């Protein structure tokens, strides 16, 4: 079994935002499960670390939350992307893609390619 990786700070927030963007309002457990599904169980050490991130996003105004009934009628807190959350996701996504592209290019370059 591969050792699980802990999420890099910042990226978890991005994952949360994207999840809410794709799936609409969702509770904490739902978000955690979704992230796990997509990352193929290779990511989380502790799912609980999600909650401070959610709180932070809420304080920044990127998400809103409210109590509501879950699929099996349990009281759960649902998180929903706000308009500024959408905007935040867009900029973060662009930043991330740029960073990833730069890093990718670094790995592609070989010694003989250099002038």
């Amino acid at each position, binding site marked *: 079994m591969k050792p699980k990786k802990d999420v890099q700070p910042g990226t978890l927030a991005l994952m949360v935002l994207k999840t809410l963007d794709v799936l609409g309002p969702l*509770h*904490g*457990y739902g978000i*955690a*499960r979704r992230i796990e599904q997509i990352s193929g169980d290779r990511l*989380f*050490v*502790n*799912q*609980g*670390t999600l*909650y*401070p991130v959610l*709180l*932070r996003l809420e*304080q*920044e*105004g*990127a998400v809103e939350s409210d109590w509501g009934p*879950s699929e*099996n009628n*349990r*009281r*759960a*807190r649902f998180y929903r992307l706000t308009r500024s959350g959408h905007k*935040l996701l867009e900029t973060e996504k662009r930043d991330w893609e740029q960073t990833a592209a730069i890093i990718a290019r670094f790995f592609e370059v070989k010694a003989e390619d250099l002038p």
Partner: protein
Amino acid sequence: MRTLKRLVARIWNFSAGRRGDARLREEIEGHIAMQAEDNARAGMPPAEARRQAVLKLGAVEAIREQYLAEEGLPLLEHLLHDVRHALRQLRKSPGFTATAVITLALGVGANAVVFSVLNALVLRPLNVYQPERLFAVEHKEHAYYMQSYPDYIDYRDDNSTFSGMAAYDTTDLAVVIGNSAVKSYGYLASGDYFDMLSVRPAVGRFFHASDEHGVNSAPYVVLSYDFWRSRFNSNANIVGTTVSLNTHLFTVIGVAPHDFHGTETFFWPDYWIPLVDAPETGYSPHFLANRATHNLWILGRLKPGVTAQQATDDLNVISRRLAQQYPTEDDDLDARLVRPGLMGDVWGDPIRAFLAAIMVLSTLVLFAACANLGSIFAVRAADRARELALRLAIGASRARILRSLLTEAVLVSVLGGFTGTLFASVLLQLLSRWQPFVEYPIHVVALPDAKVYALALLLSVGSGLFFGLLPARQIWQTDAAHAMKGGTSVGPVFRRFSMRDVLLCVQIALCTLLVTGSFVAFRGMERSLHTPLGFSPQRVIIAETQLGMGGYTEAQSWTLQKRMADEAAQIPGVSSAALIDRVMLDNDCCGSEAVYRQGTTDFRSSQQSFDAHNFSVSPGYFVAAGTRLLAGRDISWHDEANSPQVAVVNTTFAHLLFGNAPAVGQHFELFGGTLREIVGVVEDGKYESLTESPQPAMFFPLAQGMNSNDTALVVRSAFPPADVAAALNRMMNAIDPNIPLTVRTWPDALDLALFPARAATGALAILGLLAAMLAVTGIFGMAAYSVSRRMKELGIRVALGARKVQLMSAAVGRPIVLLGVGSGLGLVGGIFASGLLSQIVYQASSGDPMVLAGAVLTMALLGLAASAIPARRALSIDPSSLMREE
């Protein structure tokens, strides 16, 4: 933007005390339940399903901590938490808290008071526009500050570096208000005085340079706000009325603003009159015309961008030209710029030196207080070793523990600082209202300002951090396991010299230094009280008048003075009565004049032999004052204006001019070639201050004197002073009721001369007392602690048959040893610091055996008193009851 939103939310949560704790718990609970359900659905048994769910979530407490940290302002929350914890700790031990707060209050309070005075007298500039550009122009020679009017005019008109330059002098005139003449102090000021200072009048107008059209051309007077309010009932129509000054009428043209008190920090004038009108009030016309008559202060305002050095160079170009132009009068005229406000460096230097020295000493008191508190805190930390170890064991970081202890220390220090500042400001209010000399317009306003409060806060927090950090090493080295095992047993601290010992030693050394300082001051004071004055002030009454204030000319004065002396001698009980123009050691004493050898024709200042104080006296003065005549004869009534010019000189004068040869019958010359014959020699005396070295002095007959308008009757009588004073008042009233009269006993009049020594002694005594208190608490604390920590051990010793001496040495031996070492160090320090102390008190010498003995004895007594209680406690140990306790 997002960061800002987040910060707002955090602050909101923090201040509203909102806690998402419940919400988080519910969310987590739900999370686990849902995960467990999913697990169960996947086929796990229910118990295992839940266990796996909890594991997957992670450590709830860690998440919660992170969550809460995210929610509010953790730094502030921790701080509040620490403060609450510290307050609880302090409430638990009120005795300790009170001791610590009072100790620090004394330290900070003393510093706040001293600094306030320093601030008010030295640091705070004059209360005028751009005071940093104002400079007094003095002569190059130290403490030679007066300039002549013609030189002032040349400096003012020819310089290129000052935007304005004014001259002024203080004066006292008889002001007639209602039906009585009051002696009142004011300024003679040049026309541009107010304009140069940029002061705006409260009522009416000020005089300007354009009002001056030669001598006696501007009979105007500007009143001070206080004088206008108290003497003229704030009369709104005062402008245009006339006021009689020395029987001459002056027109009131305005009132100065209430916060303007002239340009000398202490000396608050009642009025200002134009300098050109000084002759009208009785000053000799030479006052304005003579280049060799130095009687003015010059105050100039630098142009923007000009440095003091540039201005000095500029003025010295003028000085050199004047020296060439007037080689006799302006020889060696060199300008020097000094900070104004304290009569240049005449008062400025001693006051600055004194206050700086006192400031150093009060800082030492604060250090001693900090050392004291440091050891108390170290003791507390040691006592709480178990608690601290427990906190370490359950996961608190050392930094966190240190921070909570520091919070406690800073809290104590801020409390102490606050108390101290409160105490200081009350004291300063009293000081500012206190007028040590009712007859002079002297005000010392030392109310604390923002600077003082800032300093007090800085000192308290600084000392809190200082003594709070002292036990830091101890905490850093705490080994949780060891401390918990060891319990309250005696640690290794008591086997070697610990930091606590060093602290106590330092504290005692500082205290000894301060106690030594107090003793030195007392001895100095005693010496200045018993220093030979050259006259005996006991049973002498001084009645000061100014005949000029009654409008008498010099010629009329002579007859009047003779009558006063004759009538005073007739008063019952008066053994002798005589006149002198200036009372020795009084505030306006003395004047001096250049003395030349017989035959001198070149009167440049480089040719003069020395400056001697000059006095004019009537026959019998030396008898009335109790000054011994050593050779020759007294002055007689036959020494008249037209008879040969004679003088009586003092020993120093005779010695300077003629060495050991007899002086009587010899001659000397004054400026301009007047020849005087010495007819008598009297003993040396103190003329300007008690601390001066022997000064040459000469006494002229009243008829041949220079300044015969000022007259003081010196009356010796064995009768009660009040009766004689009443008789003198009746006598003068009969002669002329318009002459202002001040009657005092000579010892009272000497109060002013003794004031510096008294003030210094008072200040040092207070600091010494504070130091002694700190020493007592330090030694007591140390001894009491050592006894209480070692009760068990001492009990065993008693049970095993230890003798009392052994028990004592075990119980309080170390504090006593420390006392000895600390006192020794302090004494050595005191001897080395005698240079510092000599700034403060006259003839300070800490090598004085009386001082050394006094300091040693005091420290020994303090040590004895402080260790007596713990020692008694050690002696009264009952081993059986002690053993049963544990």
